[in-house]
């Protein structure tokens, strides 16, 4: 068995808007091994988020092959993909994407609902994660009552709640001040080192990227090492 978590070969993705074709990804080759920590950098509009959405099984490539943990994702049914997102993947979005008018605790619990876990266990696990990101006193706050940094930490707790093997973070510190950014990055490093979580992170900031084990640059839809 290989220990490749992500393997991509010649992945392409176009967007067509009003008859104009935007080539967001023009043949991406990528290999991420278990316990790697990869930072992807690149100018705005270079296709980073597009790539991340494909890795996160939220979108499908137009052409090319893509394996997650050795399994061919391009051949999976929607239900299989949902299972993957639920059990194997954790996603931290650039814009948090918390459920509105839903408490921090319930937000973190949500993935466990779709795993069919019982309520008491869900609660306990969600509490544990919120404590870990330092929000034990904000569990009942809804997103609109939380600061950006706090919201991002809730999102991180939610991404981690189901023990994912692969954590995807799209500019996790993009909206945060330096101190909060450091906290989040510290958490990510800790996860990578102590719990063997494989991480792919997108960032614009070189000093943030420096915290990763490996840095890649995406430019005009292709990866340059």
């Amino acid at each position, binding site marked *: 068995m290989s220990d490749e978590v992500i393997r991509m070969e010649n992945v392409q993705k176009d967007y067509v808007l009003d008859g104009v074709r935007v080539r967001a990804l023009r043949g991406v080759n990528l290999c991420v091994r278990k316990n790697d920590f990869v930072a992807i950098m690149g100018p705005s509009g270079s296709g980073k988020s597009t790539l991340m959405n494909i890795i996160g099984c*939220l*979108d499908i490539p137009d052409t090319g092959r893509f394996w997650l943990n050795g399994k061919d994702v391009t051949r999976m049914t929607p239900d299989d993909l*949902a*299972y993957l997102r639920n059990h194997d993947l954790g996603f931290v979005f650039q814009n948090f994407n918390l459920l*509105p*008018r839903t408490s921090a605790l319930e937000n973190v619990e949500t*993935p466990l609902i*779709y*795993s*069919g876990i019982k309520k008491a266990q869900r609660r306990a696990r969600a509490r544990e994660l919120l404590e870990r990101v330092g929000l034990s006193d904000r569990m009942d706050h809804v997103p609109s009552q939380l600061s950006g940094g706090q919201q991002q930490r809730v999102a991180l707790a939610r991404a981690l709640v189901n023990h994912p093997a692969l954590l995807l973070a799209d500019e996790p510190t993009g909206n945060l001040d330096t101190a909060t950014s450091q906290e989040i990055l510290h958490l990510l490093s800790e996860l990578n080192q102590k719990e063997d979580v494989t991480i792919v992170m997108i960032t614009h900031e070189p000093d943030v990227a420096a915290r990763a084990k490996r840095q890649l640059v995406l430019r005009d839809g292709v990866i340059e090492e």
Partner: protein
Amino acid sequence: MNWLAAIQLALKALWRNKMRALLTALGVIIGVAAVIAMVAIGEGAQQRIAKELESMGSQNLSIRSGTVTRGGVRTGAGTTTTLTFADAEALRDVPGIVAVAPSVRTSAQVRYRGANWGTAIEGITPEALTVRNWPLADGEVFTTRDVALATPVCLVGQSVARELFGLSRPVGEMLVFKGIACRVSGVLVAKGATAWGSDQDDIIFAPLTTVQRKLLGITYIHGIEVQTSGRNAAFAVVEEIKKLLRQRHRLREDQEDDFRVYNRAELAQSAETNAKVFSWLLGSIASVSLLVGGIGIMNIMLVSVTERTREIGIRMALGARRRDILWQFLLESLILSAAGGVVGVLAGTGGAELLTKFSDFSVVVTFWSILLAFGASAAVGVFFGLHPARKASRLRPIQALRYE
């Protein structure tokens, strides 16, 4: 995802938009309540008509003397003199006929002490009261012996009793009409007006022979009331009766009947059909409002799906399968319509209850109408919830997440 969690999720989502949920449910409430109340009114009318028909003797046939043609002149119904007591007795042998009641009818001015009253006088046999399902309130019926002897006795209807005797007891008193004195042996129970408004209680019954001989001076009879063993029998015996009477009256092939047979069962059947149509009409009008309520649910669910597209995207990103999303929205609309159904059933039965109390509508809430209305509201929930729910579940995660 387990059911408990799914239901909790749906309830929470509804609770966040309390007012909207309430108004949506209101559409269903009104629809269900209308169906139940309308069907109850229809059912009440049906039962009332059924009761009336029963008191009329819906499995009865009546035979009247008919028309006769002499030299090209047709004399009109009731003018032949060929129908006899013997004809009536002969009918007893026809299978399906249970009882036979020959009668003659006239009218007279009746006197009792200072009072007088013009009324109908009918000559009958005691059997007629059974055939007409008409018991006595007081006294007793004259006997077949009285019929054989043409005894001057009579039974009075409630209206006659009231007009002539006021509050005093008629039984045992003597009435005088057409020059004969006649003892009152009994008083009939009140029967009320017919469906077409004539007062059935304005009548005096005397033995057939008494009226024939002492009042009219005839030997024939005017009509025969025939009781059959049931509605179906009523339809079946009509032809038998015609055949038998034609034979007894020695009518040739080319001669028309000198009597007429009226089938009450036919009348009853059409009245019942009318009542049923009325009932269905009311029910279907009410169903329209239930349909409108259902469209209200669909409308709100569609709005809700659009509003919550991003939420759907987030849930999918977190691992919700298509069927999880489908059920989330379907459950919301089901809960709305089921809750609306329950409240609607209560409102409908309550409204029907009030209607019976404060008006002379007879209203009958039946179990099946409750079942129907409730089932319909649940069906409405599924039917009108399914489209928005499917729409939500078919979204691709990234489309939903990017939705603005």
